[in-house]
């Protein structure tokens, strides 16, 4: 089955200040100084439309609590002061990214307000501007179209939720991001992963982006043939992309099969015009804790018949996730009701067979019918039933278009309805910004080197083997390689084989290499370049650092006893070893080189260059045999 995947990559820019004010762009860990509370309301776009996603958030009527720092965020983040003019440093970075992705550049930048009223923006909208369009990026010889490159402000960090209150922190709000969207042309999970890797690499090569966890975020648009466009938000790890795509294909395929089965069973949309039935009486003496708690709090039990759905609610469509799970997700979101069950999982969760039979009887369920059961406050329970019926109707159509959030295991859950264009309004507080030809010509000189040029340089100037050069060019750590060679002065082949070989081998041996930061690696290469570490000892030092991430390269060398020896010190060791095996040497002559080398290496491995040791052993062997 074919799939179509588009990427949306959000990358934080490494600017001094935020996009619309002078605040720093670093996240903070200390206790916030103060909080304030707000509500958000709906607004209409200039075409007079209301956005469904915005309507949905508004319907939840939440209070937003913002945590802030007196010296870290200013009135702009608090929405107590109009935005300052767009940060020119961020605009320049976004232009460079757009140009590096071969985009057309707009003649005038218009900042928009994208309505987002989940509270993640104090204003109720995210400011965003389209900078470039119609570009492309080369992914393993395939030209993947880049639809748009936008410059936008990051949202506030959500730090908690309790009752009807959502807690956000303002430190991240307003940090400049570039958003890169590809056309939905990627046709396999692997290709999606590769494209994300290639774009991420290009971003890092511009030297204008932040690095580290949480500085890049991938969203995916995924559809299978006959399915619908589903947006998956917030994939933080590159490695997870192929898996998310694969599982989403599986989910959409599963939903299409359920649709076909429902059609075979002759279930029509009209059959789902069901009214909920109050079954509170049935659960008066229930053993279910969830049910009891809800009823004791004054709630009700509502059941609704889902004709023809028997067996389909419990069918797995992603590992551990079923159509029933999707209904529960919806009910939770629209009605904020937690206690929801479906007949395919009952009896269970303390709900007994007798209770199930009684509900079936009250609903008039036949053997082919399923039902959903909701426990909660009356108004919310009714809303939850509506959400379940809505999702059941969509099951007759196949795959509902929606925005989903990625779970850490690669599965996804419902997040909100797909937003439309009605949520874009002009930002009237910021004047349009002209982009001139001179400006673009000046920036052209700052673009990262294209891959072909890099390949030439790596093989000719750095002397990398063509295979290794190609490996480095495809690597996520391409920019790290360049820094280690150019800034630190480490030998190119050593850096390349460490990054592309040693790290892979260490991982295979179970060493926690994910603990190694760019700083760790640069530290190791710096020590090699200074002569404080021989290249043979690099794997051992990396292993030590991975296991002791708070240590330094020098600390590792000391702990492992791998301080390099001078030639004279080494010669002393060689002589000592050879003296110990003088008998064998006298007997076998130069043929004793092998065993002698082995014995010496056991003492000197990692403390002196291997070729040099070999030379010392030969010299000392000859001297000994000559009768020294």
């Amino acid at each position, binding site marked *: 089955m074919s799939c179509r995947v588009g990427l949306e990559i959000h990358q934080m820019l490494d600017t001094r200040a935020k996009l619309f004010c002078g605040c720093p762009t670093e996240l903070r860990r200390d206790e916030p100084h103060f909080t304030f509370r707000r509500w958000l309301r709906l607004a209409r776009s200039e*075409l007079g439309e209301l956005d469904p996603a915005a309507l949905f958030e508004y319907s939840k009527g939440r209070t937003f609590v913002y945590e802030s720092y007196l*010296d870290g965020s200013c009135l702009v983040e608090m*929405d*107590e002061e109009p935005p300052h003019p767009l940060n020119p440093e961020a605009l320049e970075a976004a232009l460079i990214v757009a140009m590096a992705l071969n985009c057309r550049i*707009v*003649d005038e930048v218009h900042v928009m307000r994208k309505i987002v*009223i989940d509270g993640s923006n104090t204003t109720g909208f995210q400011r965003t501007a389209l900078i470039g369009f119609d570009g492309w990026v080369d992914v393993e010889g395939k030209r993947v179209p880049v639809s748009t490159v936008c410059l936008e402000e990051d949202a506030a960090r959500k730090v908690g939720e309790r009752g009807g209150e959502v807690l956000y922190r303002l430190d991240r709000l307003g940090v400049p991001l570039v958003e890169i969207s590809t056309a939905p042309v990627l046709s396999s999970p692997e290709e999606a992963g590769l494209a994300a890797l290639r774009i991420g690499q290009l971003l890092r090569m511009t030297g204008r982006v932040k690095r580290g966890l949480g500085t890049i975020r991938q969203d995916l648009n995924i559809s299978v043939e006959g399915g619908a466009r589903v947006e998956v938000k917030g994939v933080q790890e590159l490695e997870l992309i192929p898996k998310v795509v694969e599982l989403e294909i599986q989910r959409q395929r599963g939903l299409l099969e359920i649709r076909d089965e429902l059609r075979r069973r002759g279930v029509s949309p009209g059959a789902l015009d069901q009214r909920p039935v109050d079954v509170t009486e049935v659960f008066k003496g229930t053993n279910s804790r969830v049910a009891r708690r809800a009823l004791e709090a004054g709630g009700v039990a509502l059941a609704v018949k889902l004709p023809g759905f028997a067996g389909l609610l419990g069918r797995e469509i992603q590992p551990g996730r079923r159509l029933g799970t999707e209904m529960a997700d919806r009910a939770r979101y629209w009605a904020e009701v937690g206690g929801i069950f479906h007949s395919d999982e009952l009896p269970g969760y303390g709900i007994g067979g007798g209770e199930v039979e009684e509900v079936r009887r009250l609903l008039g369920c036949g053997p082919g019918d399923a039902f959903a059961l909701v426990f909660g406050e009356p108004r919310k329970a009714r809303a939850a039933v509506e959400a379940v019926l809505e999702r059941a109707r969509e099951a007759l159509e196949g795959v509902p278009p929606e925005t989903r959030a990625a779970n850490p295991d690669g599965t996804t859950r419902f997040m909100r309805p797909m937003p439309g264009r009605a949520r874009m309004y*002009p930002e009237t507080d910021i004047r*349009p910004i002209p982009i001139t030809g001179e400006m673009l010509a000046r920036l052209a000189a700052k673009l990262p080197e294209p891959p072909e040029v890099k390949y030439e340089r790596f093989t000719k100037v750095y002397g990398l083997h063509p295979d290794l050069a190609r490996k480095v060019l495809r690597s996520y750590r391409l920019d790290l390689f360049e820094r280690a060679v150019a800034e630190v002065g480490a030998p190119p082949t050593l850096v390349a084989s460490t990054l592309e070989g040693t790290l892979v081998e260490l991982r295979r041996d179970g060493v926690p290499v994910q603990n190694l930061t760019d700083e760790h690696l640069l530290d190791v290469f710096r020590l090699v370049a200074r002569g404080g570490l021989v290249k043979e000892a690099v794997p051992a030092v990396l292993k030590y650092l991975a296991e002791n991430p708070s240590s330094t390269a020098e600390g590792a060398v000391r702990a492992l006893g791998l301080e390099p020896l001078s030639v004279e010190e080494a010669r002393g060791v060689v002589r000592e070893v050879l003296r110990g095996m003088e008998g064998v040497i006298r007997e076998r002559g130069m043929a004793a080189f092998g065993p002698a080398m082995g014995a010496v290496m056991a003492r000197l491995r990692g403390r002196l260059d291997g070729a040099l040791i070999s030379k010392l052993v030969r010299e000392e062997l000859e001297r000994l045999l000559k009768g020294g």
Partner: protein
Amino acid sequence: MSAEGYGEAAAELLSAAGAGVFDEVELERDDGALVRGVLLPRPQYGDPNVLVVKLPNGYNVGIDARRVKSLRRVGRVEPSRGAAAPAPSPKPGLPRVHFVGTGGTIASRVDYVSGAVYPYFTAEEIYSMVPELEDVALVSAETLFNVFSEDMTPRHWSAIAERVAKVFESEGPAGVIVAHGTDTMGYTAAALAFALRRLPGPVILVGAQRSSDRPSTDSATNVLAAAVTAVKAPFAESVVVMHAGPDDTAFYVHRGVRVRKMHTSRRDAFRSVNAVPLAKVELPSRELKVFARRFTPRSSEGVVLEGGFEERVALVKFYPGMSPEVLDFLVDRGYRGVVIEGTGLGHVSADLVPSVRRATEEGVVVVVASQCIWGRVNMNVYRRGVELLKAGAVPAEDMLPETAFVKLSWVLARAQGREEAVRLFLTNVAHEMDERSEEWYYPPLNYFERYVRG
């Protein structure tokens, strides 16, 4: 075919293609870039020959008309200024509250042509903006005029006062809410306090520091808090209701004669000066807590209106090196009153003293208030103050300079002669003066100390 706001090159390109704003167009730029979208009107600012196109993804982009190789009209969209607001369904038996729109951020929406805001104010729209009102009040509304706050004049004050008096007399609402731009709201609030001598309910000025077209607008909660005040307040004075802090949950009711806009942009820009606020409204509980120990209660004896303001009154800020010509000019031009925002306890330079004397001799009332804003003028302490008093200057006591200006305008419109004007000016008319300066009138500002890293 309209090329609204566009320059010559753009207009030419559009007319050749038979295209205009709100048409869907397809164009090719000189670098081969293809753009398809809806052509929007040109905002007033920026290069008028850059086309603004709304792409299908909702983004607006600017494309230079001089770089366009070809442009084709492919369709049209009908812009609408929003669907009609749904019919409100207020609970029966609620008290009536009347809204008077005068302009400003609160009663406006964005005009996407200019990027500016345009006014709107009907009961339906108020309910649609603040659905919570359906449980609070039966709302009626009218637009009296649409004036930016900075364009308000004493004549507008009189017009508002007359309208408010009329509404109270003929419709008997629990309170009247005046939607007003925030920049000069304090002046209007003071003017209404002097003009409306007796009222059956409060007149409440309300505004917004964030326009109503954004989800984070403060207009809805300010309006709700104003409506709660209209319905629940025991006082019948001219007040301002705005945010008490950055939270959407607390609102202060400030006395109109004591309030001043003290910040350019914050929601809680309004502060009571030389007084504590009259009351506080809390949301979502809709409670009203009264702080004031003395206030003018609701009257059942009918409205007393004393409108009219003398327009030949000036408010002048003293600055180092100020020339006496400034004052002389006003006297020469026939001004009848001048409020000088002096320094400290109420001083101006020695150069100005003869001009003050001359003004007084010519029957002009010269009032001295303080540019310190907080505190009371006292012209007996330093020699300069004594000189000014001798020259005829009138101390504004603890009145805000703006309130002193409005009061002097009001006094001069009704007093017979200078002497009566001065006497009336120094009489407490609407709680604008207080013989006691209590410690808590001046809020402490030391909260930041615990966060300063040392």
